[in-house]
C-alpha cells in the first residue's frame, strides 16, 4: 500500500493518504414469521486521497493497483485552494477489546433472540415482533505521506427490538435497542429489562393520548437530551455546516446558562458510548471538544481542512462510513454534562407539562430548528407524573431552547445511535442528564 502513496508523491501530490477497511459483518433477524440471516459477509476495500494542485482527488477501490493513483489524481477538481493541517510521523495500534470475549455460535445467538421474542409475545396483544442482532468486526488501517501508520480494531454489536400490538381496535408499536463495544449485548445488558421496557412502551402507546399542540414545560430524559445535544447543537457545530449556520457567528458568546456544557468526545466509559474514535479517518488523534462551555459557544468539530480554516487544533472528527465514502466531519460521543438538581425536584416544579422519555430520532437544520419524534412520554400535572402519551414530536429553535434551560439533573446516561449525513451512517453515542426546559410539543391543534 505504501507504494501507492510514494507513487502519488512522484506524480506531484503534496499529500496523500490511504484508508483500508476490512469489515466482517453479520446480521440476524428473528420475527414472529421468519428467522434468517439478513446480511453476512466480508467487505474489503481502500480509499486513496491525494492533494494535487490544491484540489482533492479520490479513488476508492476493491483491488489495489498503481492505476488507482492516476485515477485519484485525474479526479482532482476544485478551486485549487485546499489547505490542510499536516501532522508529525506516528505509528500506533489501537485494539479495543471486549470486556468478555464473545464465543457465541450463530445458532446460540438465534436461540437467544428466540427467547426474547417468546417473552415479548407472551403478551397476547403483541402480534408482530422483530428481534435483530448485528455484529461488525472492523479493522481500519491509515497511512499517509507524513509517515503516519495507524491501525485500529474493534467489534461492535447490538440487539434491536420492535413490536406491534393491537387492543380494542387500536394499533401501537414500540422500539428498543442496545449496542456496545464491550461484548455480546445479551451479556452486557439485562435481557429481562429490555423485554420490560418494550412491553411498557407498547402498553403506553395503546393507552396513550396525543398531547395538545403548543409550547409547554417539559422534563427531557437523558436519552432525549442526548439526541438534543447531537441533533440540535452537535450538527450546528460541525464546521462544514457551521460556516453557513447560526452557531459560527456566536463563537465566544453566551447562549445558555452557566450550568450547560455540551461536549463531543472520542471516548466515554459507559457501555453504550459507541462513537468511540481514538483516531479519525484522517489519522488524527481524537480530543474532547467543548461545543458549549458553561453556556458559551466555544469550539467546533473540524477535519484537517477546517482546522486551518477556523484556526483550531485538529479534533479527530473526520469519519467515513466505509471505503467508498469520502471523509466528512462527524460527531462521536456527544453529551451534556450533568448538573446539581434531582429529577424529583425538577418534576415537582412543573404544574402542567410533560415528561419526555424516549426519542425515535431527530433532525436539525442549520437555521437552528430541530424536531424529534417521541415514543415514550407522560403528562405531568401539579408535579406528578400522570398518564402516558401516544407518539408525538417536540420541536423548537436550538438557541431559544438552550437559553430556556432551567435545571440540569445529577444523573447521567448514554445511548447508542447511528448518525446519517451526506448519505453516510456512522455509530455515535449520545447522552446527558435530565433537563427542565420549555419546547414546542407537536400534537393535535
Amino acid at each position, binding site marked *: 500500500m505504501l507504494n501507492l502513496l510514494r507513487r502519488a508523491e512522484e506524480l506531484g501530490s503534496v499529500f496523500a493518504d490511504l484508508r483500508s477497511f476490512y469489515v466482517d459483518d453479520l446480521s440476524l433477524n428473528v420475527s414472529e414469521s*421468519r*428467522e434468517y440471516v439478513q446480511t453476512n459477509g466480508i467487505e474489503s476495500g481502500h480509499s486513496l486521497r491525494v492533494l494535487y494542485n490544491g484540489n482533492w482527488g479520490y479513488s476508492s477501490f476493491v483491488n489495489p493497483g498503481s492505476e488507482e493513483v492516476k485515477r485519484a489524481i485525474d479526479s482532482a*477538481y476544485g478551486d485549487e485552494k485546499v489547505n490542510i493541517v499536516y501532522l508529525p510521523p506516528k505509528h500506533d495500534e489501537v485494539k479495543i477489546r471486549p470486556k468478555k470475549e464473545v464465543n457465541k455460535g450463530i445458532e446460540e445467538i438465534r436461540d437467544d433472540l428466540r427467547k426474547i421474542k417468546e417473552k415479548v409475545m407472551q403478551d397476547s396483544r403483541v402480534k408482530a415482533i422483530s428481534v435483530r442482532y448485528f455484529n461488525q468486526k472492523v479493522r481500519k488501517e491509515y497511512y499517509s505521506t507524513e509517515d503516519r501508520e495507524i491501525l485500529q480494531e474493534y467489534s461492535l454489536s447490538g440487539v434491536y427490538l420492535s413490536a406491534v400490538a393491537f387492543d380494542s381496535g387500536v394499533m401501537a408499536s414500540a422500539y428498543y435497542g442496545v449496542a456496545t463495544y464491550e461484548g455480546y449485548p445479551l451479556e452486557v445488558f439485562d435481557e429481562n429489562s429490555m423485554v420490560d421496557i418494550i412491553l411498557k412502551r407498547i402498553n403506553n402507546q395503546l393507552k396513550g393520548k396525543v398531547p395538545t399542540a403548543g409550547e409547554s414545560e417539559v422534563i427531557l430524559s437523558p436519552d432525549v437530551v442526548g439526541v438534543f445535544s447531537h441533533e440540535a447543537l452537535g450538527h450546528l457545530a460541525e464546521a462544514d455546516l457551521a460556516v453557513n449556520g447560526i452557531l459560527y457567528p456566536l463563537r465566544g458568546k453566551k447562549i445558555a446558562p452557566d450550568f450547560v456544557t455540551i461536549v463531543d468526545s472520542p471516548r466515554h466509559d459507559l457501555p453504550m458510548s459507541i462513537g468511540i474514535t481514538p483516531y479519525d479517518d484522517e489519522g488524527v488523534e481524537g480530543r474532547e471538544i467543548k461545543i458549549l462551555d458553561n453556556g458559551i459557544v466555544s469550539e467546533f468539530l473540524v477535519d484537517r481542512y477546517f482546522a486551518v480554516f477556523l484556526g483550531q487544533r485538529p479534533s479527530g472528527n473526520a469519519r467515513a462510513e466505509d471505503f467508498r465514502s469520502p471523509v466528512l466531519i462527524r460527531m462521536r460521543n456527544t453529551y451534556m454534562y450533568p448538573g446539581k438538581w434531582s429529577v424529583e425536584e425538577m418534576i415537582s416544579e412543573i404544574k402542567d407539562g410533560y415528561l419526555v422519555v424516549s426519542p425515535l430520532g431527530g433532525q436539525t437544520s442549520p437555521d437552528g430548528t430541530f424536531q424529534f419524534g417521541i415514543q415514550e412520554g407522560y403528562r405531568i400535572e401539579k408535579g406528578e407524573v400522570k398518564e402516558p402519551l401516544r407518539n408525538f414530536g417536540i420541536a423548537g429553535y436550538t438557541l431559544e431552547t438552550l437559553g430556556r434551560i432551567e435545571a440540569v439533573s445529577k444523573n447521567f446516561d448514554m445511548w447508542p445511535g447511528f448518525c446519517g449525513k451526506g448519505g453516510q451512517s456512522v455509530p455515535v453515542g449520545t447522552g446527558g442528564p435530565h433537563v427542565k426546559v420549555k419546547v414546542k410539543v407537536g400534537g393535535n391543534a
Partner: protein
Amino acid sequence: MLDVTSILDKAKNLGLSAEIYYVERKEYEITREKQTFSKSLNESGYGLRVFKDGRVGFAYSTKLEESLLQRSMDTMKVSEKDEANYLPEIKPVNSLPLFYKVDPFEICKTYIEELSDLRGKINVISITSSAYEVKVGLENTEGEKVEETRSGIYAGVIANYVDGSYVGPEIYEYSTFRYPKKDLTTIKDTIISKVQSTAKRIKLDFVPKSVIFTPKAMSELFVPLFSRAISEEYAYRRRTPLRSNDIIKEGLKIVDDPTIGDSIYSRSFDGEGIESKLNVILDGQIKTYLSNTYWARKAHVENTASAYRNYSSQPVISPTNLLVRYAEHSVEENSKVVVDSVQGVHTSNFDTGEFSVVSPVAWLIKDGKRIGLRELTVTGDLLQLIRGILAISKAEETYGNLTIGNVEVEGISIA
C-alpha cells in the same frame, strides 16, 4: 480461475440450489462546498444465496472467494424450514434501454459549473453532481442468467438565505436523470424563488382547514411512509396502517412503474432477476401490496417483482417509480398554507403511519405572494394524509421516485 459459474457448479454438486447477484459499479462525484472534493469509485460485490429443503443461507463479499460458499451454507443452520424459501425462477426479460454513455468527469464538471452560477445570487452551501454506471446481474444453478448495465446522473444544490445574524433554512433542489439535460434552469429558478420566500418568516397565527403539500414535500413525507405500508411483508405481519379490504380513497390511483426510460429508479428486472412490470397499488382501495419471491409465496399472492437489494443483503421489497393521480384537480392556493419540505420523517412510527414532523420551508399564499412561515409542525398519520386529499393538481413534478402534483389535504394538524 474462480468465477460466478464455478461457485454455482460447486453449490450444485453439493445438492444446493443457489444464485449469485453481482454488481460492478463505477461512479464519479464532485461536491463543491467551502472545501471541494471528488469521489471516484470502482467497486464490485457478490451476494450468494443457497437453498435446500426450505432453508436459505446467505453470504456476500467484495471479492469472489472460495469462502463465500461455505459461509453461506453455515448460515442455513439458523434458517427455519419454510416452503417460501426457494430459488426464484429466472426467465429471459425484455431489456429496457437503461444505459447512456457519458464522460462522468466532464458531465459532473459541466453541472457543477452551471449550478455555480447561483453563487452571488443566493447563499450556496453545497453543489453536487454525480454520474454512475453499474452492471447488475444474476446467475443461478439452473443455468439461468440476466444482466444489464444501468446509468444515471444526479445534480443538486443546497442554499439558504443569510442576512447578518438571520439564517434561513437549508433548501435543497435536485434532479436525477439518465439522458444529459441541456440546462438546469428549472433547478436554479426554483431554488432562487424558494430561498427568497424564506427571507422573512412569520409564525402561523391561525389553524388552517387544509394544507397544500408540494411534490417535494410529498416525496419527503408520503414516499417513505407509503413505501413501507404497501410492502407485502408488512401487510402479512399486520405492520401496516393500510388494510386491503378498506376503501381508502375513492378516485385515488397509485401505480408503481419500473419501466420509465429517464428514471434512474427503473430496471428491466428486479433484485431477484424477475422481469419488471407495472403494478397498480391503489385504485380507491389496495389492489396489490408489493412483493418479492419469499413474501409472495408466504402470503399466497402473485409476485409483483418488487425485490430490491444490493449484493450485501438479502432482497427486501421496494417500489420503483410511484405515480399518484386523483380525480379532483382544482387546487386553489390563495390564503392556503403550502408545505414544501419536511424534516424528521425517519422519526415517524412506520407501523402505524403516525408522524409529527417540522416543516422548515413553508409559506402562506396571500394575494398571489408567498409569505414565509417559521416553526411549523405537521402532525397526522398516513391514512389521514391519504383520506384527507381534496385535490391533486394536474401539473405534475417528479422528485426522487415520485411523480405527483400539488396535493391539498384536510385533517392534518398544522401548528
